[in-house]
């Protein structure tokens, strides 16, 4: 997908999340707000962030981890019940939330994700899953109603949905890793053969007897 198209789709998602009839419905229920409106806004910013990274991210791989951390922190902040309530009560906070979910959460998340290598992406997912599950569990077990603006049933439903989402992300990530992609095996194998001597394997039995690190050999 071209960067410009990607950014346009991102803008479309943000508009969709903020359109009065849609926004009104999404903000009416806690699960819809957190698992509907938030992802639309974050995804909108993330698509723009990924497009930016594609154009200007060359050599900025060092910023991926910090960007992911910053985006996650902002997203986490807007999941605090006190600020969910504030956004419902005060239009200024609601506007600030929308802006920051797009610009301070989505944008860095998209930027960081696009620049991150597979290990950092895996690490981010492996952290997201337990955190989603733990916050879901908190919403389920905490004796009090956390948001004044929403019913406790909504809180419990959001908790259950977060647990389900955590499980879904985990399953999807495992399936993705199992399926993989095109192997770089051939090229890698050639480089490996140059980088270190062959190990004693089915192709290198007793006669060669070299070690993986190549420093050992059988004495006569």
């Amino acid at each position, binding site marked *: 997908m071209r960067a410009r198209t990607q950014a346009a789709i991102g803008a479309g998602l943000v508009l969709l999340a903020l359109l009065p009839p849609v926004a009104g419905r999404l903000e009416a229920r806690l699960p819809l707000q957190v698992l509907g409106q938030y992802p639309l806004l974050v995804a909108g910013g993330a698509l723009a962030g990924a497009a930016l990274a594609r154009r200007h991210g060359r050599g900025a791989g060092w910023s991926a981890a910090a960007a992911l951390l910053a985006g996650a922190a902002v997203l986490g902040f807007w999941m605090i019940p006190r600020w969910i309530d504030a956004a419902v009560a005060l239009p200024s906070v609601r506007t600030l939330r929308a802006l920051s979910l797009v610009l301070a959460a989505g944008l860095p998340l998209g930027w960081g994700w696009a620049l991150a*290598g*597979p*290990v950092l992406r*895996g*690490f981010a997912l*492996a*952290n997201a*899953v*337990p*955190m989603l*599950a*733990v916050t879901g*569990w*908190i919403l389920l*077990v*905490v*004796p009090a109603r956390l948001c004044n603006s929403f019913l406790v049933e909504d809180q419990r439903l959001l908790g259950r949905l977060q647990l389900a989402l955590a499980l879904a992300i*985990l399953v999807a990530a*495992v399936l993705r*890793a*199992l*399926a*993989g*992609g*095109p*192997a*770089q*095996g051939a090229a*890698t*194998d050639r*480089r*490996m053969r*140059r*980088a*270190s001597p062959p*190990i*004693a*394997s*089915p*192709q290198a*039995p*007793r*006669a060669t*007897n070299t*070690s*993986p*690190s*190549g*420093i*050992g*050999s*059988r*004495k006569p």
Partner: protein
Amino acid sequence: MAEAQAAATGGTAAMDRGRTWVVLYLATTGVVILLMMVFGLLMRLAQSEWIVLDPAVFYQLLTVHGIGMVGIAALGGIAILWHFLSAHVPLRSAALAINLVLFLVGVVMILWAVFIGGFAPAWTFLYPLPAISGGVWEPWAGVLDLTGVLLIGVGFLILCLEMGRAIVASQGGLGRGLGWHVLFGGSTDKPPAPTVVAGTMVVIVTTLALVAGATIVVMTILNLLFPSLAIDPLFAKNMIYFFGHVFINATIYMGVAAVYELLPRITGRPWKASRVFLGAWTLSTTMVLIIFPHHLLMDFAMPRWTMVLGQVLSYVNSFPVLAVTGLGALAIVHRSGIRWDLVSTLLLIAMFGWMAGVIPAVVDATVSVNYVMHNTLWVPGHFHFYLLLGLLPMIFAFMIHLARDEDVTARGGDLTAILYLLFGLGFVAMFLMGGWASVPRRWAVHMPEWLVWDRIATVMAAGVIVLAGVFVAIFLARIPRLLRHG
């Protein structure tokens, strides 16, 4: 050396084999294993009434011995796997460095929590014990201990992700790393090497275990800080045993790389990844994730189907990989003209310990037996068998192999290995006999009728420690030379 080779041949520094780090891992492993063994000996001495140990100190030692052995088994196992896997897939050794730093910081936190904070609920930290200490420890000690566990888990997660990345990049996916293209797709491509198959399995199961472990550890920390956040005890136990069972099981699958790589080199016979071999590893990858309910056979509130699953799959789980590895090892050794020495004998002991250690485990996973044996010394009997005579000989064999500059020429020393086997067998047999006589596990003070097993076990443990000390000393003495060649 590998870096120099890589530079000289146009390879990249990213393909260094992490040899220096592997040596440091093994040095740490050796020292900590000996320390944990001494802690174990102190507990057996106290149970034998040969020394007096404050029960509070006994439970602190029990906690550190448990968590320490689990962590160090993983550290030693991963060193073996990394060393051999890095010959097949390009790994970046920075992950080894990060893990070791996190591991050591985590260990300091755990030791502080236990010996200064008094935290002693055993390594399983079963809910609600961390929060209900009866005044023995403060909540901060629990938080510190569990944060240490969390850090160690993060380190191993990074290692697993790095190995997973390398396998996906070089093989085309974890499925291909398990050889599914050959097993299910009818592909005529060369199957992955046995070490790659084992590494793929380790990556899958350990990552899932660590994610579950991180979840329950964070939940427990939150419960310690905010007691109103109550955890469902049955859920907590399931999560802890899923994490714990899979993680400790995976350590032997890490270590088995030594068998797959060294026996062929010693005998000159290749170890091929046949379709049966690939099928066995796929079966074990699946089953190791779902058999943990055999730890909960006495929890009446568990759904009946999970108990059935736990018992039946416990019977089946170990056999595929054990059969292909055990029979494969025997086939490679049989009439190979092998001259037995310390390394090859330790590897054969490891195969025996793994195969024989499974038997008391399977026996205990039978509901009617578990009804009697649950929480007796039978349980430590089975996992000491498996770890002391299965995993540790793999680690010691690898240490000696490195200390000999990876030269596989037979040099004797097999008598030391046989002595280790005899003392080890005597030690675990005393656990099993204690269990057979219904001696409870985790008791600081034993009845006079039980002392005979305790005292024999103490003598045997001393012998094991001396011999393990010999293996570790051989390795430690060669470290300066190994690091110079690093």
